[in-house]
């Protein structure tokens, strides 16, 4: 916390006097003069409030989700600016691609904090990258509202600058674990991609299953893998047979996996249920890719279930649909709300200073597309700190091919459930 | 030079060729040669003097920095090597140019690449070549790389004859080939000349080359040292040549 002064100070040493020289040097060494925003201009009347977005837009990161989050953020900025912006200033979002790599995240955050001098940063999709970015925002004291990162470490570190408006594994895992027990599954196979998301998810679910004494078996595979025949056949041949197959994979793997698992007669079948975690099953091209294999598939949804939609959710879904010809997944809603959260925090505390934004978020009481946002200040448990504790989460099971995720029956938790059953066995 | 022209117009002539592999390093400093039908013309000279380079320039592997190459009235300077066959020029490099992993038959077939769309004609020509070189027919399904050095040379000649060329540029045809076979190869070359081919022969085997040469060029360090008809050099020409060359490559009198 004291660091910010030193750091800010050190860039202040160079003050206005050194600016031209600094410009020239940076420009010359960059070799791409036109691309660099000129910094250090005197403030104009309606200088925009700059927010930085970080997230994957290219491989090896989860660029598909990243792009949807970027779309949603841009929509939020538009909507806010149409209403006159915040504190009479328009919102401007600077987007930084992190490629899902920690070092890229560090550089992106450095740039946003130091070069672009953003008021706050939001977004991200990979926990490992968020953890690297957090060190930077902590150093420069810039508020950071993490969206689709589920590792509990993010909030558990207790950095005052860091908030999260998505669910976190402890919440998700408990929900999935409770559902598994309630639905009466006896033997689960967990298969996930070998990366930060997959491993954290696997560990969380495994812990819950262990606690519930539900037998399970763990498998991991390369995140780039697309051929799962051998793996699925092995799972199918397992003795005792698995009655639940839980998968966490990026789109490029999850879709062929779903098709393969269906075509080889493993899951979803009357014997084995298929649960695809991570949001792939609510993405725009899900049905085009899996076809009939997606029928009876189960997945979690981190958006507000349709039954609980408010006017903002309805408006956002309609607008997103109109603009991008697809339903927005929960992660897009998180990004959309994140911009609004930050705008509200700035508005309420009347300043873009870090402390003001942090205070604004801590005292936030605002209804968005995913319900009523409040951020916990309790550190018990550690991950609860600055966590949106009521982040919506539910489990749905498709019961028709090409069904919109919004229309799919919700089986868990009971407060959102739209059908009386917990799990519908596929009919042959 | 005047004497050379008596037997007819040259099939290939080069004037004042200057060439080198690297910028600034010249290997040929202005060499002029003529190749005439019914004649074997030998280029002799010590190692590293630019004899092979001369052939490479003539065949288009190396573009000359200056000078001109003509075939009749057609200017060939700057033409690519794969076009040379079209002008009736054949090049036989020092290391046999057969394709070692392809069969003898396929090697021949590729020799008729220019005629590839005329299947019947190609087949006929290959049959004729096999008739001329029966040893090759026996090994037609074998990879060319498994043939002996002499047989590979035979294959090259057989292949080149498919297109009935009129100029042969030959580089050390008997390098690392046993003497008995070497004699056969020189006879083959002489036979080609008698059929009216124009032959330019670069050789280290001075005795062999002089045995069939009608005309001799002697090169030293990138330029012509002397030239003249074989007959003008008299009987002890070998000794003479080896004296010019001051090299240990001069054949011992046998």
């Amino acid at each position, binding site marked *: 916390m004291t660091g910010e002064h030193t750091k800010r100070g*050190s860039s202040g040493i160079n003050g206005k006097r050194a600016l031209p020289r600094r410009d020239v040097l940076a420009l010359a060494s960059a070799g791409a003069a036109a691309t660099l925003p000129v910094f250090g201009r005197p403030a104009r009347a309606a200088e925009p409030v700059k927010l930085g977005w970080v997230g994957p837009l290219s491989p090896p990161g989860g660029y598909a989700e990243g792009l949807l989050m970027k779309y949603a953020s841009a929509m939020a900025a538009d909507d806010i600016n149409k209403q006159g912006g915040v504190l009479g200033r328009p919102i401007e979002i600077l987007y930084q691609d992190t490629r899902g790599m920690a070092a890229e995240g560090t550089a992106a955050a450095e740039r946003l904090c130091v070069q672009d001098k953003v008021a706050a940063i939001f977004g991200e999709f990979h926990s490992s990258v968020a953890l690297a970015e957090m060190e930077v925002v902590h150093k420069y004291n810039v508020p950071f509202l993490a969206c689709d990162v589920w590792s509990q470490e993010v909030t558990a570190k207790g950095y005052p600058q860091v908030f999260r408006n998505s669910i976190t594994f402890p919440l998700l895992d408990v929900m999935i674990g409770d559902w598994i027990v309630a639905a009466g599954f006896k033997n689960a196979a967990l298969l996930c991609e070998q990366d930060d998301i997959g491993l954290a998810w696997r560990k969380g679910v495994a812990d819950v299953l262990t606690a519930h004494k539900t037998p399970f078996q763990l498998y991991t595979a390369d995140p780039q893998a697309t051929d799962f025949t051998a793996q699925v056949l092995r799972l199918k041949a397992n003795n005792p047979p698995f009655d639940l197959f839980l998968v966490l994979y990026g789109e490029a793997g999850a879709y062929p996996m779903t098709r393969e698992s269906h075509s080889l007669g493993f899951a979803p079948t009357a014997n084995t249920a298929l649960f695809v975690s991570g949001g792939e099953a609510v993405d725009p091209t899900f049905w085009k890719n899996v076809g009939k294999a997606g029928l009876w598939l189960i997945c979690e949804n981190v958006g507000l279930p349709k039954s609980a939609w408010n006017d903002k959710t309805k408006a956002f879904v309609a607008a997103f649909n109109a603009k991008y010809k697809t339903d927005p997944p929960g992660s897009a809603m998180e990004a959309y709300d994140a911009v609004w959260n930050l705008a509200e925090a700035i508005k309420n505390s009347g300043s873009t200073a870090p402390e003001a934004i942090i205070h604004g978020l801590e005292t936030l009481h605002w209804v968005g597309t995913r319900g009523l946002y409040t951020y916990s200040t309790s550190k018990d448990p550690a991950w609860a700190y600055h966590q949106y504790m009521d982040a919506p989460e539910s489990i749905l099971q498709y019961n028709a091919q090409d069904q919109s995720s919004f229309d799919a029956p919700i089986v868990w938790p009971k407060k959102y459930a739209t059908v009386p059953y917990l799990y519908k066995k596929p009919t042959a | 030079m005047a004497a050379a022209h008596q037997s007819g117009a040259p099939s290939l002539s080069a004037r004042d060729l200057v060439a080198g592999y690297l910028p600034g390093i010249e290997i040929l400093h202005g060499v002029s040669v003529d190749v005439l039908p019914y004649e074997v013309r030998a280029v002799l000279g010590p190692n590293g003097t630019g004899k092979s380079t001369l052939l490479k320039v003539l065949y288009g592997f190396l573009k000359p920095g200056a000078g001109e190459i003509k075939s009749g009235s057609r200017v060939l300077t700057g033409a690519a090597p794969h076009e040379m066959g079209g002008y009736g020029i054949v090049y036989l490099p020092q290391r046999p140019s057969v394709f070692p992993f392809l069969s003898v038959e396929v090697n021949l077939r590729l020799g008729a690449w220019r005629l590839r769309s005329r299947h019947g004609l190609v087949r006929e020509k290959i049959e004729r070549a096999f008739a001329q070189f029966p040893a090759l027919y026996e090994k037609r399904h074998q990879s060319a790389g498994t043939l002996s050095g002499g047989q590979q040379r035979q294959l090259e000649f057989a292949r080149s004859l498919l297109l009935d060329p009129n100029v042969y540029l030959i580089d050390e045809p008997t390098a690392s080939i046993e003497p008995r076979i070497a004699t056969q190869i020189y006879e083959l070359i002489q036979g080609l000349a008698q059929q009216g081919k124009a032959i330019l022969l670069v050789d280290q085997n001075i005795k062999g080359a002089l045995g069939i040469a009608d005309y001799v060029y002697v090169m030293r360090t990138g330029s012509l040292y002397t030239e003249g008809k074989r007959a003008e050099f008299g009987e002890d020409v070998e000794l003479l040549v080896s004296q010019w060359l001051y090299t240990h490559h001069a054949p011992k009198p046998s």
Partner: protein
Amino acid sequence: MRAPDILLSLLLAGLAAAFPFLVNAYWLHVMIIGMIYAIIAASWSLLAGFAGQFSFGHVAFVAIGGYTAGILAVSLHVPLPLGMLAGIVAAALIGAGVGWTCLRMSGPYLAIFTMAFSEVLRITIVTENEITGGPGGLNVPQLFHAQTDLPYYYLILALLVVSVVGMMLVLASRWGLFFRAIRENEQAAAAAGVKVTRFRILACAIASGVAGLAGGFYAPYIGILTPDVASQDQMGLVVAMAIVGGVETLPGVVAGAIAVEFMVEALRSYGQWRLVLFGLLLLLTMRFARNGLLAPGWLAIRRLAVLQGQRLIRGTAD
């Protein structure tokens, strides 16, 4: 070294020392990353450019250096400087081992063998997450507890100078002569009495050790070490840096690495288009300026400096 060289070197040294005070913290960070890459690219150049072993797995040694330091610090609480030293030793030893293993390989076989080594290492780091932290990353403690990057900057500057000058001295010695002889023609070198085996392995060990040093610094500086360090993308970036700088001069490679790093960062504002543009720039550079962009530029500057210097001398003489 001639007078203009000394002059230019002094100028550069002054500029390097003053750099942190000329730019903001973001560009300082970019510079530090650029210098880490400079060490990696220069060591790769030693191996590929001078010793003729085109390795496509050099980043594996960065990972070995980094993970050795990181794991020692995290699991066994070994002090970081000691861990970094261990990382250099480990990288050099394993590098020597790999060099010994691929003694008989050359060209594309060597490139792909080393790439495979690097991939196997990366997959192992990913899979053995109990030890390495897996893809989620290994949290490495900080080296300095200062609030600015200044100490890191001066440390990496020193490491860069020491390693590059060290490698230049090696290249200027008899060893460097042997490296080049082996590159030009292994058989001929062996015939001339060069101990080919020994010097091929030696080149690998030196280059790998230096790469390990870069990794050892990278780990605590970024604070989190992920298996991507050893990815093929990173390797390509390093090779691109070396080529842009002109593989045959180490200072050129250093400049190339720093310039490419600044360029990649400057392209940030293009979002999704950034890597598209990077790929395009790489293609255009390779296609139209094959000898690198910087070495010819450097020569031009040097010529200008010599000219100016002469004019100056002439001016005072008049």
